[in-house]
């Protein structure tokens, strides 16, 4: 495995995955604290339609199958946002409850995405490069190229600047949206920025984790980090470290075994960290609580 790390391609993949895991993990703290895990799952599943759709559009325009993140991530963003806006519209204009609306939207977008994926794979004149498209279901870090790395870097820098620039506002909004509105913050604008950060935290990791399991990389680092700290800043930092380490290690392990999807490996590592944190953390850990009850 250490020989693998000498390999330039593997270096790119591991580095890119670690950056991705860090960004997702940190941004996931907002989703975790705002109880938006389900919303995250809907966005990630829905984005499959955008990925496949933009791949197809790219073929229509350029005449070639393009799998660059510079094309597919915008597709994922468009589909993810469309699913969210449609859910909001449905729940505000009908009597359908938000959770039902989310469930329906997930099914529609993910189902359409899967169908479109099958159609593209069975075209009589196949689109070149279509084979790797299904890797977006469970993730394939090895598919990462240097140009993908730049896209990941761009999303990381943008979200980092957003969070740093509006730290106090985001904190108020996450803690108490009503109070934020009372302070005169434009809730609409800020809710949209929050949604934007959530979407970035998801689409950035679709290539390496896949649409099916992506919500785990968003939420698991935050759930683990929350057990160890009582401050939002250190929670985000710790979630970034956990996400980064698990994603990097997962990418390395799956590179060693060719053809192994990366997503499940990363999710298993994340699950281990969460279980350890929930059991052992001082103060909040289940085992520690037991012990303090005994004494």
């Amino acid at each position: 495995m250490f020989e693998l790390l000498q390999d330039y391609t593997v270096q790119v993949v591991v580095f890119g995955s670690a950056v991705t895991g860090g960004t997702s993990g940190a941004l996931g703290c907002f989703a975790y604290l705002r109880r938006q895990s389900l919303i995250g799952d809907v966005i990630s599943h829905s984005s499959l339609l955008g990925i496949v759709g933009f791949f197809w559009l790219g073929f229509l325009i350029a005449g070639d199958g393009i799998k660059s993140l510079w094309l597919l991530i915008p597709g994922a963003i468009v589909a993810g946002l469309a699913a969210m806006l449609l859910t909001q519209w449905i729940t505000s204009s009908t009597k359908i409850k938000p959770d039902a609306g989310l469930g329906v939207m997930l099914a529609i977008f993910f189902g359409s995405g899967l169908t479109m994926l099958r159609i593209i794979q069975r075209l009589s004149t196949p689109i070149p490069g279509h084979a790797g498209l299904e890797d977006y279901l469970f993730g394939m870090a090895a598919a990462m190229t240097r140009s993908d790395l730049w896209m990941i870097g761009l999303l990381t820098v943008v979200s980092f600047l957003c969070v740093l620039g509006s730290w106090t506002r985001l904190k108020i909004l996450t803690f108490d949206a009503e109070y934020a509105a009372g302070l005169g913050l434009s809730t609409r604008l800020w809710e949209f920025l929050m949604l934007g950060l959530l979407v970035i935290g998801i689409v950035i990791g679709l290539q390496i984790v896949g649409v099916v399991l992506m919500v785990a990389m968003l939420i698991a680092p935050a759930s683990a980090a929350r057990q160890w700290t009582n401050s939002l800043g250190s929670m985000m930092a710790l979630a970034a470290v956990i996400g980064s380490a698990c994603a990097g290690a997962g990418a390395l392990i799956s590179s060693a075994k060719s053809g192994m999807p990366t997503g499940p490996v990363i999710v298993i590592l994340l699950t281990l960290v969460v279980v350890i944190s929930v059991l052992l953390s001082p103060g909040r850990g289940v085992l520690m609580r037991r012990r303090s009850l005994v004494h």
Partner: protein
Amino acid sequence: MESAIKTHQLTVSYGVNTALWNVSAYIPAHQVSAIIGPNGAGKSTLLKAILGMVPTVSGDIEVIAADGKPAANRAAAASSIGYVPQRSTVDWDFPITVLDLVLMGTYQRLRWFQRPGKIQREEALHALEEVQMQDFARRQIGQLSGGQQQRVFLARAFVQNASIYLLDEPFAGVDAKTEAMIVEILHRLRDAGKTVSLVHHDLTTVRRYFDHVILLNKQLVSCGPTESAYTPEYVQKAYGVEGMQLDGSDRNGSDGNGSDRDPGNV
């Protein structure tokens, strides 16, 4: 009567439900006033409408800023109002300390990329002293009791340095000692020239605590000084129940009738 906030024929509705209907009322400046009414009377909605948190169907709201002139826009109105929401609206397991929570009140004075600094921290600590919570500054908010949570919320409103304080049921779920302390703080604010108005539930304490009363039941029932606006006739009109105790002689008497302590009430 100099007023700090005036509503003119204010109507607010949630979907098909009308929460407030044609309410023309005022909150007097430099006084402690109560917004009273039965469950679902629109008390919290009135506060939220003033703060611009719920859309209004019709009518006007005028907020007089600290300089004595009407606030020109929502941001100006918001910066002159310190809002204390119901305690139950937030997640008390949120990973912040007491000091962090109070520092949220300083946000309006912060620029982009600016984090609360030494000055803001001193202001926050001072506000915590006002409510006798300075020893809890480093604690995680989840470790506080209900009364302590309410005092921290008050401190957060203080650091905003507003001229008007609007509180949504500050006495819900706090013990008698904390309630007395909060009342004292509110009266001190009034004596310092601030305007204080709160949504209140306990009819037995109205005469002791408040200078001014706004009695609501979706429509305005009465609005004026406590002696004239808080009479058995008006209370009966608002609650639709006869023979209610209005003074402090029987503390439990009114609880069974119309008043309640349901924090989810709008």
